[in-house]
């Protein structure tokens, strides 16, 4: 595989049409997996031995939390690529991911509050896990606010990339917070160095939902990237041709 091929796909014009063809498939996969995942989670999975039915929010809470952290890491990788190789598309992908990441962080915090009240007895506590996830939410909001505040797209990209790179340090802190400190939040049920501490059917539902959220995040980010491309390349020839062909 020559490097020339990769540069072809990093051209916004090529990427625009490629993404357009891929988006419906990702949305379809997200829809199908959500239906399967929710069916497993809310119909097939049994009641939990200590939490009863309230544990079922895990099928939304954990996939949203995982993706909220993962998207930030992906943003940081795009930021690093953008700064190193000066590719416009890297920065566009970085900006396109932020709103989805912010939304999933909000979902994680919100479902966490709904879960915390019936189980712990509190909507919110200032323990290390919850606080660091809240900081992640502020990082997403800060990233979007900063990018929106700077008119010159190139400067906005660089400023945003800086937040993405500096903020990525928060992600391992969120992930390991339950191990490093005493927290009210329980430890991880699924991790690489031990067997999952969940019944198989519950685990299956959670993983299917995680893939569903993943597919949705890709579809949403690609759609948003297409809008950003059109906006930024509005004076280019290929966009003019595209508009002509649509008329």
């Amino acid at each position, binding site marked *: 595989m020559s490097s020339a091929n990769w540069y072809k796909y990093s051209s916004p014009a090529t990427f625009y049409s490629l993404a357009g063809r891929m988006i419906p498939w990702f949305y379809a996969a997200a829809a199908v997996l959500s239906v399967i995942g929710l069916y497993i989670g809310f119909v097939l999975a049994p009641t939990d031995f200590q939490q009863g039915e309230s544990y079922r929010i895990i099928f939304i809470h954990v996939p949203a939390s995982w993706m909220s952290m993962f998207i930030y890491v992906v943003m940081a990788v795009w930021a690093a690529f953008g700064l190193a190789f000066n590719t416009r598309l890297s920065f566009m992908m970085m900006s396109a991911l932020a709103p989805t990441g912010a939304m999933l962080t909000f979902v994680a915090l919100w479902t966490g509050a709904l879960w915390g009240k019936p*189980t712990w*007895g509190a909507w919110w506590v200032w323990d290390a896990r919850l606080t660091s996830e809240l900081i992640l939410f502020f990082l997403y909001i800060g990233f979007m606010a900063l990018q929106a505040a700077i008119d010159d797209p190139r400067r906005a990209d660089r400023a945003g990339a800086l937040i993405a790179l500096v903020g990525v340090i928060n992600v391992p802190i969120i992930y390991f917070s339950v191990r490093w400190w005493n927290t009210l939040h*329980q430890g991880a049920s699924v991790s690489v160095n031990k067997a999952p501490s*969940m*019944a198989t059917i519950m685990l299956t539902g959670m993983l299917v939902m995680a893939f569903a959220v993943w597919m949705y995040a890709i579809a949403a980010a690609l759609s948003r990237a297409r809008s950003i491309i059109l906006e930024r390349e509005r004076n280019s020839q290929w966009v003019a041709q595209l508009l002509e062909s649509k008329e």
Partner: protein
Amino acid sequence: MKSRHKKLLLIAVVVLALGAVAALVLNAFQSNLVFFFSPTQVANGEAPMERAFRIGGLVEDGSLRREPDGVTAHFRITDTAKTIPVTYKGLLPDLFKEGKGVVAEGRMNTGGVFVAEQVLAKHDENYMPPEAASALEQAQKAQQTLVAPK
């Protein structure tokens, strides 16, 4: 080395340096990031006795006693090494149970009893159907009776 690879390396170094800074700062703040103290830490005087703090551990089996007024509860929090008596006036969370995790926030009174203002249940990361849980419990009991005669 190409200039863009140099740049990538520089970014990696900066991120690693920031990570090291974050690790050092967090290490320095370690004690403030602790959500609760264990009964052993409290017994060793590591908890701030002069102000409100949280104790976390298990509700000791057989220690829960409710007063006739229906809202005051007495129980002991244990980490199996040390035990702290707690008194609490208010509604206990649904998952509050003997032998299960708990985090209580309040102050130590002069008599060595922890007067809680808030009691939170701390559950673990295990999820399974009730049948599996009772099967597990029976297996553990069977194992204990096998070991006990020695």
